[in-house]
């Protein structure tokens, strides 16, 4: 055995690739809708409405092809307060991540609630969408939700 201590090397390694996403015929309508300030949910044959929209029903496994407008208001199903946003967060003042069940939908979607105090939040409280001024055909076209009391 050598007595020499090995130098432990380390090197930076950055990995990045460019991708091109094909969203398909259903989700393309949903993202186009968002750019036009419309939230579309998927309606199943049993009249269950999924929002965010889905391509396939998780339970019946049917292809979901009917889209209906939901929201832009809804209720808080659950939430988590972010006291000190980090650089990675999209909102730089204290805000909440929340599960929001939009009006007309049977399922909740994860989004953010801003411009409020922690003490304003409660399960069952009403919120409404605030739209981005620069639509990008993505879920970020809903900038966040605010309380609607």
């Amino acid at each position, binding site marked *: 055995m050598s007595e020499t201590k090995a130098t432990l090397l380390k090197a930076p*390694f950055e990995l990045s*690739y460019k991708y*091109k996403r*094909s969203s*398909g015929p259903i989700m393309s309508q949903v993202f186009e809708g968002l750019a036009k300030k419309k939230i579309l949910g998927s309606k199943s044959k049993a009249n269950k409405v999924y929002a965010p929209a889905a391509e396939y*029903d*998780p339970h019946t*496994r049917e292809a979901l092809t009917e889209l209906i407008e939901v929201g832009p208001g809804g209720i808080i199903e659950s939430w988590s307060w972010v006291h000190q946003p980090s650089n990675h967060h999209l909102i730089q003042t204290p805000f909440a991540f929340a599960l929001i069940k939009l009006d007309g939908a049977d399922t909740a979607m994860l989004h953010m609630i801003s411009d409020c105090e922690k003490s304003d939040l409660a399960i069952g409280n009403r919120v409404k969408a605030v739209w981005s001024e620069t639509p990008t055909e993505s879920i970020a076209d809903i900038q966040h939700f605010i309380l609607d009391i």
Partner: protein
Amino acid sequence: MIQAGVIGVGQTNYDSKRRDVSMAGLVREAIDHALLAADVEWDAIDAVVLGKAPDMFEGVVMPELYLADAIGAVGKPVLRVHTAGSVGGSTAVIAASHVCSGQFKTVLTVTFEKQSESNATWALSPRYPYSPHINAGAGGYFAPFIREYIRRYDAPEHIGWKVAAKDRQNALKNPLAHLQIPGIDEKMVSETPMLWEPLRYLESCPSSDGACAMVITSEEMVGSRKVAWIKGMALRSEGTLSAGRDEVNPQAGIDCAKDIYQQAGIHNPRKEIDCAEIYVPFSWYEPMWLENLGFCELGEGWKLTDEGVTRLDGSLPVNMSGGVLSSNPIGASGMIRFGEAALQVMGLAEDHQVEDANIAMGHAYGGAAQFFAMWIVSSSKN
């Protein structure tokens, strides 16, 4: 052991860009075809086994999460398989093993790749620290092994052109195949640019989008359905850069083939196997694998190709569907080989059907020719 058989094979059409569907839509398309072919409903499916090549190919990490709804996995066990390019084959073996274990009666298995969402060649060549960034690409990696094969056995250069032309001629009989090149012949191949010397452009596989699915079930569930009985299946692996490894004729491939022949009771594969779908992404891999799989002695593979033995009308047709050289949705490419072998013994291969095909082989390899997956399917149970 419980006997397992394929009762349904479903494929998408293969194309360079399937922008008309999402990834979920692509896999579901293959699944819908497989369920229809198998004549089973979702309720009959006891488990789902999904396979695809590296997640970096589409940039969706753990696609089995996003795809759970599309593959009907909700409320059922799901397993994701990954063994590089051989994954389509190993996924089929894992799915069939689920049935043979007795734990599951009927299993749905699906594999896919949507290469149009990225660039697979460069997703395999990141700039790792302490390593040269040679950017060889898959063809650049395999080309030196091909040269060594040519040197060992003094094979003439037209062999590669011959395989490339033959597989694309077969693809013209398969409407699902990606490359459809009317009038393709050896001369056309030989006149295409040198890509990865000694491989020319048309001696290389395309980059495809597509998915392939199968329904595999146990003897008791088969009923009156057409079935491809799985008579032998095996997986073998070896290291990428292990000292003493023979990349031209990998031991793992030899061992894997011996294993399935023993399981299937095959003593003379050249005589007893009616046709084979072998993973040939670069032309020369046909003769190389013919030898590795024991269809002939070492150095004799290129002669079988040259004599036309592997043509659709030859005595050992290889890659009747057009093979990987005609359609290459990487994660699915192995399963297409396994599924096409099943279609042959079920008599459902339509225009590229081999007459009286009763015993067929499906083969896949992946990584640096280090992962092998194979099966033998038969039209008869015993």
